[in-house]
């Protein structure tokens, strides 16, 4: 029995935990039973699990991201509930520590990252007129590695115990001296496995965007979202290897008794903080740049105008990407580098405000002289501008090193980064999802329910996070599971909790909207329901497997608008056979073995580690010798499909 002891959760006398375990078990059983009853296993395997189609992979990323949003959101509501009143006992300290740790990791790594990569997967090949990404099989592997990492991370909740050292996982707290149980091992391996997937995505999309653009689409004629995706993936390729190595060093410290980050035998705990943020700060821009791309598309579409200052938009993103690697020290001005180093990093950090400001003004100038339609995606974009500006200027405040000595580690900081991430990334992803929904599924989401969700989310956001600026300035440190009444944090924390509830209602409304629209929305929305401008709207809704029957011929970043309004000849050739990659179960099997590898590593089950490792090598050897030339979709088949959509273009 000793062998099995390691899998038990550290003692909690918390009935809620067991209730959630039971709930998870019931849901899992229900899914299996449901799939079997409706005989959907074959459909699931053939159409989704083995797919290499960038659109389906994108949708799977987005579904996973939404699931993680609800996991991380539940954590968030629990935190706000615990801190809503002074001296609350809803959660104990240890449980609270696990909850905010998993909230951070799940939201950043498994929700936001998955959402932006999903969005890039779905949109980028369409926007550049390609049939798929450069390496479709690798793309499927990226997704399944991400999914394996996400599942491994969530498993910690029920087997062995969740990580509890914060999403920043600072050593020595995260070392075995202070966090003995396996939680941080889970952190190391879950992030490692999904990080490998992300790195592959980076390489894949750089190759796709550099090599697979439609004829005529020069770099400076790419739609803005594709530009943001290109720069994001370049940052990924430069930043993620740092995380890979830092996680490995942490793993070695925890599992093989090395001393990279320990406080004895020459170890340096500050080195983890440095490595983490050398990855972590560029990571912030990995999240925000695609969001900027989405807003650029949406604001331009619903202002019925071309994007103002295209060149300065591109230039500002390039500058942001370079600066993103030069600011990491601002995450620990308080570490004692001295005034000179802090001043330098203070200035590089504030410098980012300049290119970001350019973007804000360019969006405003895009709306100027436009014809603004307040659709749901546009409402999120309009709300984003002032809210993100507030988040940005509080970022400048935090960048002032001397003042940061007072903001650091406080709720002011928490308010700031939620103020940029939620209106920045989350609003963009919701707006993008609604905007591209007809492209994905061929029907629109209901606008009325969408607007209800919008108001709940925007007002909920303001109520939840603005009070934190004030309690932060009043001395409330972040990550405290409770506080006494004499601190005076009580009333504003209650406001925050109410805001969190409104946010939760908003997100539930979004899900309800999906259900409602699936049941009731008309299916004949046409190919251009938004009167859009860029190339992805030049094909059908939902997009056929091969994307474009004829490879488009591009003349500007608004090829579709020019086609509609200026008589541009978008489709010059005639329909021919199209070469497509084959589906394959290899990726999901590979990632499954990786999951076993990670799980065994977490628990020091070395036999399992070795067997899984051999499996991983075996998969790579198999793939190296596998001959798979893909298949052709025949001309007649394409013509048939095109006819169904109302004739080839």
């Amino acid at each position, binding site marked *: 029995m000793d062998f099995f002891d390691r899998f038990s959760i550290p003692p909690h006398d918390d009935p809620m935990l067991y209730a959630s375990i039971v709930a998870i078990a019931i849901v899992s059983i229900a899914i299996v039973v449901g799939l079997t009853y409706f005989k959907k296993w074959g459909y699931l395997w053939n159409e989704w699990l083995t797919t290499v189609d960038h659109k389906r992979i994108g949708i799977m990323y987005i579904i996973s991201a939404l699931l993680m949003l609800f996991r991380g959101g539940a954590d968030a509501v629990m935190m706000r509930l615990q801190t809503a009143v002074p001296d609350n006992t809803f959660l104990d*300290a240890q449980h609270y*520590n696990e909850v905010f740790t998993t909230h951070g990791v799940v939201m950043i790594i498994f929700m936001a990252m998955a959402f932006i990569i999903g969005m890039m997967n779905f949109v980028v090949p369409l926007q550049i007129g390609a049939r798929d990404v450069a390496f479709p099989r690798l793309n499927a592997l990226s997704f399944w590695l991400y999914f394996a990492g996400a599942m491994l991370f969530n498993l910690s909740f029920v087997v062995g115990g969740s990580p*509890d050292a914060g999403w920043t996982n*600072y050593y*020595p*707290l995260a070392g075995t001296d*202070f966090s003995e149980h396996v939680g941080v091992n889970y952190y190391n391996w879950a992030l490692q496995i999904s990080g490998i997937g992300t790195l592959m995505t980076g390489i894949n999309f750089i190759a796709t965007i550099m090599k697979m653009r439609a004829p005529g689409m020069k770099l400076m004629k790419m739609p803005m979202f594709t530009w943001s995706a290109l720069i994001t993936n370049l940052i990924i390729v430069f930043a993620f290897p740092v995380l890979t190595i830092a996680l490995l060093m942490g793993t070695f410290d925890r599992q093989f008794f090395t001393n990279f980050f320990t406080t004895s035998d*020459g170890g*340096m*705990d500050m080195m983890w903080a440095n490595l983490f943020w050398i990855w972590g700060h560029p990571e912030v821009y990995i999240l925000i740049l695609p969001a900027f791309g989405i807003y650029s598309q949406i604001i331009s579409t619903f202002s*019925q*105008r071309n994007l103002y*200052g*295209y*060149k300065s938009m591109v230039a500002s993103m390039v500058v942001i990407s370079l600066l993103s690697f030069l600011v990491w020290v601002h995450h620990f001005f*308080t*570490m*004692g580098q*001295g*005034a000179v180093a*802090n*001043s330098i990093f*203070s*200035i590089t950090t504030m410098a980012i405000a*300049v290119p970001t*400001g*350019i973007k804000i*003004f*360019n969006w*405003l*100038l895009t*709306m100027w*002289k*436009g*014809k*603004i*339609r307040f659709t749901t995606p546009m409402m999120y974009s309009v*709300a984003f501008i*002032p809210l993100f*500006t507030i988040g940005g*200027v*509080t970022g400048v*405040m935090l960048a*002032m*090193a*001397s*003042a940061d*000595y*007072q903001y*650091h*580690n*406080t709720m002011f900081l928490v308010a700031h980064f939620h103020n940029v991430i939620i209106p920045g990334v989350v609003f963009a992803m919701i707006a993008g999802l609604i905007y591209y929904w007809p492209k994905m599924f061929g029907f629109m989401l209901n606008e009325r329910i969408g607007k209800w969700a919008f108001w709940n989310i*925007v007002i909920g956001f*303001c109520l939840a996070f*603005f009070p934190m600026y004030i309690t932060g*300035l009043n*001395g409330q*440190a972040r990550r405290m599971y409770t*506080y006494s009444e004499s601190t*005076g944090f009580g009333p504003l924390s209650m406001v925050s909790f109410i805001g969190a509830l409104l946010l939760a209602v908003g997100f539930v409304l979004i899900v309800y909207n999906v259900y409602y629209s699936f049941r009731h929305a008309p299916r004949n929305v046409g190919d251009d329901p938004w009167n859009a401008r860029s190339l992805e709207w030049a094909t059908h809704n939902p997009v056929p497997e091969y994307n474009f029957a004829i490879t488009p011929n591009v003349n500007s970043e608004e090829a579709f608008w020019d086609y509609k309004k200026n008589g541009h000849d978008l489709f010059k050739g005639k329909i021919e056979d199209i070469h497509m990659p084959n589906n394959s179960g290899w990726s999901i099997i590979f990632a499954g073995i990786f999951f076993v590898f990670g799980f065994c590593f977490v628990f020091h089950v070395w036999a399992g580690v070795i067997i899984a490792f051999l499996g991983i090598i075996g998969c790579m050897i198999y793939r190296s010798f596998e001959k798979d030339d893909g298949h052709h979709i025949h001309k007649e088949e394409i013509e048939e499909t095109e006819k169904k959509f109302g004739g080839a273009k």
Partner: protein
Amino acid sequence: MKLKWTYLAFLAGIASLLAGCEPLLVLNPKGPQAETTANVIWISIITMSVIVIVVLVMLTVILLKYRASKQDPDYEPPHIEGNKYLEGIIVGIPIIIVAFLSVVSATSTHQVENPPEGYDADEPLVIYASSSNWKWHFSYPEQDIETVNYVFIPTNQNVEFRLYSHGTISSFWVPQLAGQKYAMADMTNYLNVVAEEPGEYVGRNSNFNGEGFAENDFTVTAMAPSEFDSWVEDIHNTAEPLTEEKFEELLEPGHLGRMTFTGTHQDFKPAPEGENSPHHHGSSDSEDDGEHHHH
């Protein structure tokens, strides 16, 4: 439009809340260091408000003027590539603002990293503040006393806190007296603090360090120098000496109330500075360690 009004109403709400309540700790300084940071915060709040207001006004005007419902159905928005001068302005003004704030940031950071002006001539009172899970230990080497979870300091004198940790990274923070700084196991940090008004100030570890983090706080009491001296004398008359065994006991994870001892743990367990630094590689680079001191 509704958004704007909700928004403005909300900001007004916050403002009235701010006005109604007691001054926020960080903005209610009781010493020159915290005063510097409070001034920087006010300067940045005012500068940044201007930017937020400009963006809000522009957005409101544009949304009111150019919404589709207000326009001729035949209106076709023009194609505008960009404008050199306009884009010059939206780059230029932020650069000026950032340059201004950079100067404020660099000079104020230099100020708070050094003994405050007017207090830099005299020798500072040295107090070692070291953290262990989840306590603060204060050693007064000159007075040869040690306290746990509370610290007494004389007013109007520069106190040099030497910060380090017996384990996890923690952050020493007394919002009304000075900004925070990390206490870490393998290096000593220096924080200059002057209290100009007598009183009791809350202090805490603000850097998450495990289960007992929320209660990882202490109090700083500032008093007239004469009172401080008699307090020290009292301790020498009443408190027990701190032994090595006793200190090891104190380091065990957990919470302790206030405690007072004669002697300090610096005698048998010195701070990681100078030759006791784990990253100290012989005497040849002793200047290296000197560098950590204020200049």
